[in-house]
């Protein structure tokens, strides 16, 4: 018997014998089947760049704009869930109210990530001090993360801005530590990790920043919701 982290009800996690005997690590269920159903996975037809779920498999309008700005060099992003009301409520509870336990819920959504260099999008130091944890690192805590980026302090949160303000936001990241030994190695693949892909502004900025250190690396991104 387990207690659902969202509704607090008791439930029996489904037993999957194949998975049980696969001897591979898996996430123990933290949500009851009812709460699990609240979250809608993205549909099969998606924008080839940002992963938005849509009617046709063509480049979405946002990405067409990015294509112009970045001269065809699009960031390929993969996401799992719709950013709908249920996901919004979960994120509000997790990020705004600081319910650290919910990192387990978000972590339970994660698929196995590829063996690339995993770079989390950083939280501003002010927010981190206030919450007592880093929202992204807490979710992806089971993976070996390389926090190569730091946020320039005093810029406020993306979530508090309008769409237009987000798009016009300035580059908010700097490389963490220039003497980090990793910069001497040749890195071929980097995966940026974030919780929400809204306009793409944050992730494109993060990529710009990493490009300077790893000019030849292939950089993609992964977010939980789109």
């Amino acid at each position, binding site marked *: 018997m387990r207690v659902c982290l969202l509704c607090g009800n008791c439930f029996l996690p489904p037993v999957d014998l194949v998975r049980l005997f696969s001897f591979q690590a898996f996430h123990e269920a933290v949500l009851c089947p009812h709460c699990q159903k609240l979250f809608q996975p993205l549909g099969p037809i998606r924008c080839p760049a940002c992963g938005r779920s849509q009617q046709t498999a063509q480049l979405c309008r946002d990405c067409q704009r990015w294509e112009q700005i970045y001269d065809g060099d699009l960031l390929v992003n993969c996401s799992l869930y719709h950013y709908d009301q249920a996901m919004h409520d979960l994120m509000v509870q997790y990020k705004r*109210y*600081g319910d*650290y336990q919910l990192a387990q819920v978000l972590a339970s959504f994660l698929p196995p990530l590829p063996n690339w260099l995993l770079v989390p999008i950083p939280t501003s130091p002010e927010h981190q001090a206030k919450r007592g944890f880093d929202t992204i690192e807490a979710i992806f805590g089971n993976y070996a993360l390389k926090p190569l980026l730091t946020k320039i302090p005093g810029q406020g949160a993306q979530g508090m801005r309008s769409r237009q303000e987000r798009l016009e936001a300035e580059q908010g990241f700097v490389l963490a530590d220039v003497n980090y030994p990793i910069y001497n190695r040749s890195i071929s693949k980097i995966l940026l990790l974030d919780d929400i892909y809204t306009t793409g502004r944050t992730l494109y900025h993060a990529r710009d920043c990493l490009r300077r250190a790893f000019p030849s690396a292939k950089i993609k991104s992964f977010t939980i919701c789109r």
Partner: protein
Amino acid sequence: MDELIGRQWLANQEDITTISTCEKVPAIQADRCQRCGSQLLAYLPSRKRYCRSCLGIGRVSEDQVLVRNLATAVFPKNPAPLTWQGKLTKHQTKISQALVNNYHAGKTTLVHAVTGAGKTEMLFPLLAACLADGKRAAVAAPRIDVINELYPRLAEAFAQIKVGCYHGKREAEPGCEQLTLLTTHQLLKFYRAFDLLIIDEVDSFPYAGDPMLHFGAKNAVKTAGVTVYLTATPTSDLLAEINQGKVAKLTLKRRFHGQKLPVPREKLFLRPYLNHGRLNPQLAEHISRAIKAGHPLLLFVPKITEIPAYLAAIKADPQFAQLKLAGVHAADPERLSKVEAFRRGELEILVTTTILERGVTFKHVWVIILAADDRIYSASSLVQIAGRVGRASDDPTGLVLFCYHRYTHNIRQAMQEIQEMNQ
């Protein structure tokens, strides 16, 4: 600092500001959150614990303290704070007098009054007795809608008194008004603040069955203060306290117009309410009867997701093609305007979830509850929904229809309660 009299708030341990009237307690003590009483604690990466229950009003964690301002607010005495000119009926006067007596005797009281009894007016003399002494009073309810409806009425009835109104949709932090209206969640921000605390609709979600809100309510009232509970359907925990003699009970069985409650009709449906997007003919018959009689109709459905299907089915029926209808639910951004349009008679049918089960009055309205056997309807919800009908003195009857596939305990209990109050 006077603003914060009777309040409790979070501060960091190193916060050294001290006010002589304030006490500091560790925010989490003896495995319990001291603000909400919950034991639902979880760990932060720092190995400090935090409370998951009352997160919404600011996270309580182990390295913090709760600062409580224990000063007593002093208000001028005012021999006649009540500016309301209306008159109470004979039944209302009796209850109202008993409430004032119980208040002076320091007795916690439960008022069990039928829906549409005019509970708010009965409170006026009680509140006046408290405010006249220069004491501090609060009226709390679990739902924001109820508070929003009460606020203008109380502000008008006590025109010379400063009235505060606080809930999650208002940004303002509570101040120190002599009369405060607030949701039961906001009570968690107070500590030993009120001489009189009235909690309306104690049987309703989320107050009923939430130990955190009960804890908050107990803490918000002064040790020598008096609590008054109002309900149309007392919950079992309150009934138990009445039996133990901890709470006095006052019962009012008649609506303000002196008429009995409309008794719901029960109807067994063997076929689904909707079949391939078409209304069940019997259901259509009932709807058309209400419309022909010229009554606006509230159609209760158990789930938000079912609203569009019913709207489409009604629109698809040729006999209802001319009707204006809408659906409304808690997360609907146009909720207030739709309810207002229905109240003005611009909509004939309003399909709704339980958000309109209580605290709202529509003239001449009739009610159909679809799937009254659904788990979402507690006995108290059903009694409340039935209580929307026949509230006007010139139209004290009307149709309440419980549609069900399976007769449930809750339906039976609701019917019994209504019939009991009608005796």
